[in-house]
């Protein structure tokens, strides 16, 4: 699974090693309801100074995979395997004290909600000073001066006064800027931004993204940006990984993903981005259904219960991430033939009606089902939704879903859909 990126053109820096290379990473959590397979064998590589977007819904494993890059998912209940090679060292195998020296120093992270991510009882400057003093011997006064400089760097006006204020005295956008300043305090080589704009106003979102881009150009930091919104990464990512049910289902350069997306899930994500340049009466098409249980995952292709183009064999054959024709870095995990995928995407782009597109898929040849797979039972997964933290909330049939995250993209889509008056029915319900 790693070959596509590792042999990619330009994917090698002067030393020949990527800054970060994740190889067959698996993270699972033991819960009372069973084992949650949050990340299920993902591989990607990131060059120094480049930006990678990881895109997917809640529960796709995107946050868990990035927390694991900082060793933050280590616990008695978690199992982590695979390798995360950072500057020639494996983060998965590192001992705790070694890992602490990497955290906040070489790799730092910013989070979705900057209000809850900053300690409410400490002044912003104190929290910045603390971040510096963990990793370098710097006097308090020097660290304070540098805190003000950092706040200035991230565009906070009147930084000398602001260092002595508490997070609750900052606006939402300012708090995220302060988080970014804290993350950059030790000039990390890699910055992981987990939904950095989700909790912010739309105008502030754009400012934060512009700031990240600007800082990357000035400081040469590599960035992994995690989001549910392809629109966020369109501008700033060099490469994009689309994750679904703990796996990468499509991977490619940003141009590949936007111009020639291959996976039906990626199509769904693209169709649900509001675009200013499209006609106002054009409907946003949500992805029907909801993310699958990561405890009892659907058989075959994990996306099959929600895929409009599903064939019988897809319920049994688990597609592997394979290079797309004519490209060394673009890869997809889909059982549909590439010519069929190309026709369907053309149809979606030109606005053909959904039913005729489904007919294209229905007329296509099915993949061969291996004898072993015929024995295995077919399953659409159970009705349990694990959250990104690996917490599982059981639900009875027909009950309202409980989400552990206040901001949930699936909910937004459902809401938006209610406005357009469209009835939501997944293929599994019809």
């Amino acid at each position, binding site marked *: 699974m790693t070959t596509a990126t590792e042999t990619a053109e330009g994917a090698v820096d002067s030393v020949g090693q990527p800054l970060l290379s994740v190889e067959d990473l698996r993270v699972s959590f033991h819960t009372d309801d069973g084992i949650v397979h949050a990340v299920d064998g993902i591989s990607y590589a990131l060059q120094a100074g480049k930006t990678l977007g990881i895109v997917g819904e809640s529960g796709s494993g995107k946050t868990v995979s990035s927390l694991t890059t900082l060793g*933050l998912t280590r616990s008695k209940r978690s199992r982590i395997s695979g390798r995360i090679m950072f500057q020639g060292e494996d983060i998965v195998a590192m001992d705790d004290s070694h890992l602490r020296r990497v955290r906040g*120093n070489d790799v730092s992270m910013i*989070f979705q909600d900057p209000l*809850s991510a900053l*300690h*409410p009882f400490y002044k912003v400057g104190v929290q910045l000073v603390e971040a510096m003093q*963990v990793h370098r011997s710097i006097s308090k006064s020097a660290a304070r001066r540098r805190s003000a400089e950092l706040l200035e760097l991230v565009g906070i006006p009147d930084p000398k006064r602001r260092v002595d204020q508490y997070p609750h005295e900052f606006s939402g956008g300012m708090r995220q800027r302060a988080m970014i300043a*804290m993350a950059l305090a030790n000039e990390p080589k890699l910055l992981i931004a987990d939904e950095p704009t989700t909790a912010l106003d739309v105008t502030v979102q754009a400012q934060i993204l512009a700031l990240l881009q600007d800082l990357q150009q000035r400081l040469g930091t590599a960035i992994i940006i995690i989001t549910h919104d392809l629109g966020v990464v369109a501008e700033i990512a060099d490469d994009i990984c689309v994750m679904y049910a703990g796996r990468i289902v499509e991977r490619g350069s940003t141009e590949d993903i936007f111009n020639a997306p291959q996976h039906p899930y990626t199509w769904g994500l693209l169709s649900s981005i509001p675009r200013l340049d499209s006609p106002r009466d054009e409907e946003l098409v949500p992805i029907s259904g909801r993310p699958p249980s990561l405890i009892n995952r659907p058989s075959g292709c994990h996306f099959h219960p929600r895929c409009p183009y599903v064939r019988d064999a897809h319920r049994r054959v688990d597609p592997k991430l394979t290079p797309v024709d004519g490209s060394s870095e673009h890869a997809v995990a889909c059982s549909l033939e590439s010519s069929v995928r190309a026709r369907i995407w053309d149809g979606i782009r030109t606005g053909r009606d959904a039913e005729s597109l489904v007919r294209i898929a229905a007329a296509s040849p099915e993949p061969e089902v291996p004898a072993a797979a015929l024995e295995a039972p077919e399953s659409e997964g159970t009705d349990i939704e694990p959250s990104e933290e690996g917490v599982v909330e059981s639900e009875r049939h027909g009950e309202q879903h409980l989400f552990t995250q206040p901001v949930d993209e699936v909910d937004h889509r459902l809401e938006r859909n209610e406005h357009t008056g469209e009835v939501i029915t997944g293929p599994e319900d019809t």
Partner: protein
Amino acid sequence: MATYIVRRILWGIALLILVSAITFVFFNVFPSADPAQLRAGRNASPQIIAYIRHELGLDKSLPVQFWVYMKNIFLHFNFGYSFYTGASVLSLITNRLPATLSLAVGAAVIWLAMGIPVGILSAVRSGSFLDRTAMGIALVFVSMPVFWLGLVVLFLFADDIGRFHVFPGANTYVGLTVSPWHWFTSLIMPWFVLAATSAAVYSRVLRGSLIEAMGEDYIRTARAKGLRERRVIFRHGVRSAITPVVTIFGLDLGALLGGAVITETVFNIPGIGRLNLDAINHSDFPIVQGTVILATLFIVVANIVVDIAYAYLDPRVRYS
């Protein structure tokens, strides 16, 4: 902030007057012995009783009596005289206060020293054998009434009636200035008995609030910064989790300073609680009134101190 404190103090004074009035009404409305008759002793003639009643001011109307009482407190800081012994209430209270102070402060030190570390350990190792054991023991201590625990401890460890002669038993209290060593040893059992419930409550409160704090996003941020786990727990976790403990501590200590009636009675410690109880038994209204006002005063002050401490602990309170 300053105006806020002044406002709180004024409200506190109003509350004190209100509590005095309620105590006054209770004492006069509910049946109790005639103070004048008690003071006069047996076989006193009606003339003498009438004379005493006049001397104590009990022949005036109730509102006038209350007015005189309040006037004496505010103008002369005079809380009246015991109906029974004629001693000044203020001097009785100041005589008794050191014992109550010794008992309350010593117990507070013990319950904090026990409750806080146990709470932190239990939270950090939540679900472990250690946590379950500690919380099980805490539950036992919470469930034991003080009068029962006090008697059990006396029957086990008192050097007079105890199964094992370890500590001085009931009625052995001496002042700190008289003999520091005897003061200390005589208070060991009362301290632990009084501290047991609170230590258990505090460990459970801190455990719950620390577990909650350790799940917050800012703890993840602290770890992502590369801080040592010890620093993450104390500087970031406990710092937030301690606020509810500070609140209950202030209120508990304030309430105890007004007299730990049960513990003082079980161990026969001459504190405010005993003074109050004896006064109630003797229908000695001025002492009851004085001790009630003192207890109210401590609680009002504790509330104000907690509010100020809260603003100091949580910067978000200061500005809202």
